[in-house]
Structures are given as C-alpha cells and as structure tokens.
C-alpha cells in the first residue's frame, strides 16, 4: 500500500475511533463540557467585578476571546498529554501501535475531535452568560481571520501537547504535571489581554510566547483591536510558529521512539 494511502486510512481510523469514543462516553463528554463552561463562568464573573460598567462593552469581548482561546489551548494540552499516561500507556496501546507500524502522535492528535466538540458546546454557553451580565456585544468582525488565528493557536497547542506527551513517555510523569507554564502564560503571555495593554517587560515576554501572535490575530478578527506587530506580520509569524512546533514535536517523538521506546519499552503500567 502506498504511504499516502496508509496515512489517509489511519487518519480516517483515528477520527472514527475518537468520534465513536466520544459518543460512547457521551455523558462524560456532556458533563465535561458543562464543567468547562461553569468554571470559565465563575472566573469570568469574578473578572467582570473589576471592570467599571461603562468599559464593559469594550472589555467583555476581549475577555471572552482570551478565555475561549485559553480553554482551547489548555484542554488540548490536558486531553492529549494527560490521555497518554492515564489511558494510552496504562492500557498498553503504545506497544500495540508500534508493533503494527502505526503513528502514536496521529492517534494522540485525534483527541482534538473531543477538544473541538467540547469547545463548540462550552464556548456559546459562556457567551450567553457573559451577554446576560455585559449586554449584547459584537464577537466577530473578520470570520476568516478568526478561524486562521484559532487554527494556528490550536496547531501550536497540539505541538506543545505532543512534546509533553513524548516527555511523559520518556519520563513516566503525566504530561499535564509537566505543564507548569499554563497559568502563567495566560496572564503574561499575551493570551488574556492585548499585548499593547501589558506593562513593558511583560510585553517582551508576551512577544516571545508563540500563542500571543495567534491571540493578537483573534482579537483583531473579533474586535478590530490592531495587532501589536501589524496584521500581516502576525499572520506570517503565527503560521510559521504553528508549523514549527508541530514539526519539532514530530521530530522529538521519532527520536524518543527510536532511541528509547523501541529499545527499553514503555514504562508506567498501572495507575500509580
């Protein structure tokens, strides 16, 4: 079978697997979506208390997209890297895939089916709550750019999640526990607030954080707030960073697979 055809068949199988798995555990899935929405709402209402009422129409969409993006990013990391240790390794599926010559990263990337489906349920619900508090607001100005921004942010998150998953396979430590940057980057990494709003040194940190470039595009596409480095620069930087992170993750996994997994096997059978 030609390699392209094999990869395509595997992609279809992976999508089918994650689709059917989400359906099989539908109550867990619905519960998880509600869980996400409720936690976000708790924080959102808390943040709104800091904002003077006359500034709400401007600030509310920015807060909404910041939190929606962070939700997408952090759930990608949790669902991909966490699932590696808590499910894939425990059930012995890594060895099974290696023996059949199938791609473990592709199997892990399939978790995006669940992540995206969950975001599709939770995000509109969060909007409804926010609208109830802040009143009606315009959320999308340029849909195409918004999709591009979200897609590049998701590519970066997936690349990072696959790197953590690979480290988890090598070190036997659950991926999310290795993710110490999640909360800090949300605030100082230009995800929560526009880069221009951050104080001097944090602005530099934000510009060095890959997610900030996608976030700037999303805010521009949603509210018209001009990106700090200009629209075209941010389009190019986001796309390049998304691709670079995915390629790096793939290369690191291949290295760990050949130098470690195929030689010494997968550690971490059992829950503890």
């Amino acid at each position, binding site marked *: 079978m030609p390699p392209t055809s094999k990869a395509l068949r595997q992609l279809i199988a992976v999508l089918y697997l994650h689709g059917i798995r989400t359906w099989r555990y539908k109550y*867990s899935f619905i519960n998880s979506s509600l*869980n996400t929405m*409720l936690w976000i709402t708790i*924080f959102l209402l*808390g943040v709104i208390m800091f904002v003077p009422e006359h500034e709400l129409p401007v600030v509310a969409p920015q807060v909404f997209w910041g939190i929606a993006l962070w939700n997408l990013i952090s759930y990608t990391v949790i669902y991909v890297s966490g699932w590696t240790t808590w499910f894939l390794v425990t059930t012995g599926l890594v060895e099974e895939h290696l023996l059949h010559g199938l791609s473990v990263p592709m199997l892990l990337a399939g978790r995006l089916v669940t992540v995206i489906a969950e975001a599709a349920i939770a995000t509109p619900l969060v909007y409804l709550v926010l609208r109830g508090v802040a009143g009606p607001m315009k959320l999308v100005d340029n849909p195409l750019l918004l999709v591009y921004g979200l897609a590049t942010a998701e590519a970066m998150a997936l690349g990072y999640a696959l790197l953590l998953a690979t480290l988890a396979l090598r070190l036997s430590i659950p991926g999310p526990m290795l993710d110490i940057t999640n909360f800090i980057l949300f605030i100082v990494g230009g995800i929560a607030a526009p880069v221009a709003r951050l104080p001097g040194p944090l602005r530099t940190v934000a510009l060095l954080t890959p997610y900030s470039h996608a976030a700037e595009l999303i805010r521009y596409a949603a509210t018209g707030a001009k990106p700090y480095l200009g629209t075209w620069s941010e389009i190019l930087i986001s796309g390049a960073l998304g691709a670079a992170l995915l390629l790096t993750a793939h290369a690191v996994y291949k290295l760990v697979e050949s130098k470690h997994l195929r030689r010494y096997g997968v550690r971490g059978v059992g829950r503890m």
Partner: protein
Amino acid sequence: MPSSFLDVVAAEFYAFTRFYKNNRAMMVAAFIWPYLMVLILLGLGYLFGSPKQYAERMGVSNPVFFIISASTVAMSSTFILDDVANYTLYNRWNGTLPYILLTPMRLPKQLLAASLPSTLVSPAISVSSALPAALYFEGLRGAGIIAGLYAVIVLGMLPLAGLAVLIAGLVLTAKEETNIASSITPFLLLVSGVFYPVTVLPRALQLVAAAVPVKYVVDIARAMASTGSATHRVFTAIYALTLLAFAYNALAAPLLGAVEKRVKRYAPY
C-alpha cells in the same frame, strides 16, 4: 471479627495519607492551586480593571485577601462531592470495588468513611497553603480568619455528605469512564457567588443559591473580610448551614438504601 465504622475510617485515613506520600507531586500541586486561581483572577482583574472597583462592589477591605480566602473555599468546600464519586471509580479501575461491595458494612457507611479523610485533610492542605499569604496581607488577624475558615468549610461539608453518597451511586451505575456528575461541583460554586455577589446571577439561580451550603461558607468568608461588623452575618450563615445539614441528610437517608440495592445489582465491576 466484624469491622467497626471507626476501623474503616482509620483504614481510609491510612490509604489517603499513603496516596499523598507516594504522590508528592500531587501534594505540591494541592499547595500551589489556590495561588494559581488567585493569579488568574487578579491578573485579569488588574489588566482589565481595578482592584478598587472590585473592593467597592464586594464590600471587602482587601480584595487580594478576600480572593485568597474565596479560592481556599472554592478549592476545598466541595471536595466531598468529587472525592466520594472518584473513590468508587478509582476502586473500579483498580479492580478492588467488588471487595468493597462484598464487605459486611453497608455501602453508604463505607462511602461515608471513605469521604472523611478527604473532607478533613484536603481543606487543611488548602488552608495551610493560604496561611503565608494571609499572614503577609493581614498579619495575625488574617491567619486567624483563614484558620477559622477551616472549621466553617468542614461545617459546610456536613449537608453535602448524603448528596455525595447518592452521586457516588449514580456514577457507579452510569457505566462511564469518568465522574459524570463532576459538573455539580462548579455549579454549586457558581450559584454560591464565590468571587462575585450572587445578585449578578439570574433570579432563578439566586433562588437555587439559598439552598446551597457552599453559599453560606462563602458568605462567612466575605463577612470576615468585609469592612463592617460581621458577627450577625457569620451567625446567620452558621445557623443556615446547621439547618441544611439536617434537612439534606434527612432527605438523603431514605434514598441511600435504594441506591445501595441498585449499585449491587447493576454496578459494573
């Protein structure tokens, strides 16, 4: 020799402490989590608005200290709901659930015993993690308030005990991979107005809040951090918590037998 309830509680305490001993990273995470919640809320608050605005709306003197107290409540006051449900799932994954169900002790009592270590120890971890910040911002008064919060949080758990056992039964019979009722925890926190006044919520949710024990725990935390006199508000909340403890457990008691029967008949091992 049949085991007494206290024997089972002691065994559960042993298992709980061993778990933390073998998972030190979990222990560290439990200490750090309240600060992460504070970081997010304050970070966003400072970026988009001002803490003065927050203090005025919430009627508290020190918003940072109040958010630390509220995060401690948020982290620990609903442990009982999650931990009892996760206890059953965890034992199912490990294959030890059949042994638990076969012990002579009634299942609700067993689940209650299993919930006690987490109910007492988890809030203690959250409170200890908040102590340094409380000392820094409010001195000894702050440390006293945080220590007092521990007692209030434990009191707030009592009304939830029966509900927790019912949820654990539901989770076991649902045949799913995770705790399908885990969204109850953030829902209770949402209607309790943990970081905001409940008046911002729709009217229906405000009515629900009146029957949620966590709301009264949050009320006490807010009263303790408020600018005015707090005694009346604290005693009203304690009174409400005591009433709810009796009401909820009296309502849950007749259902527990039915839950046990259903679990033993349908629970997948």
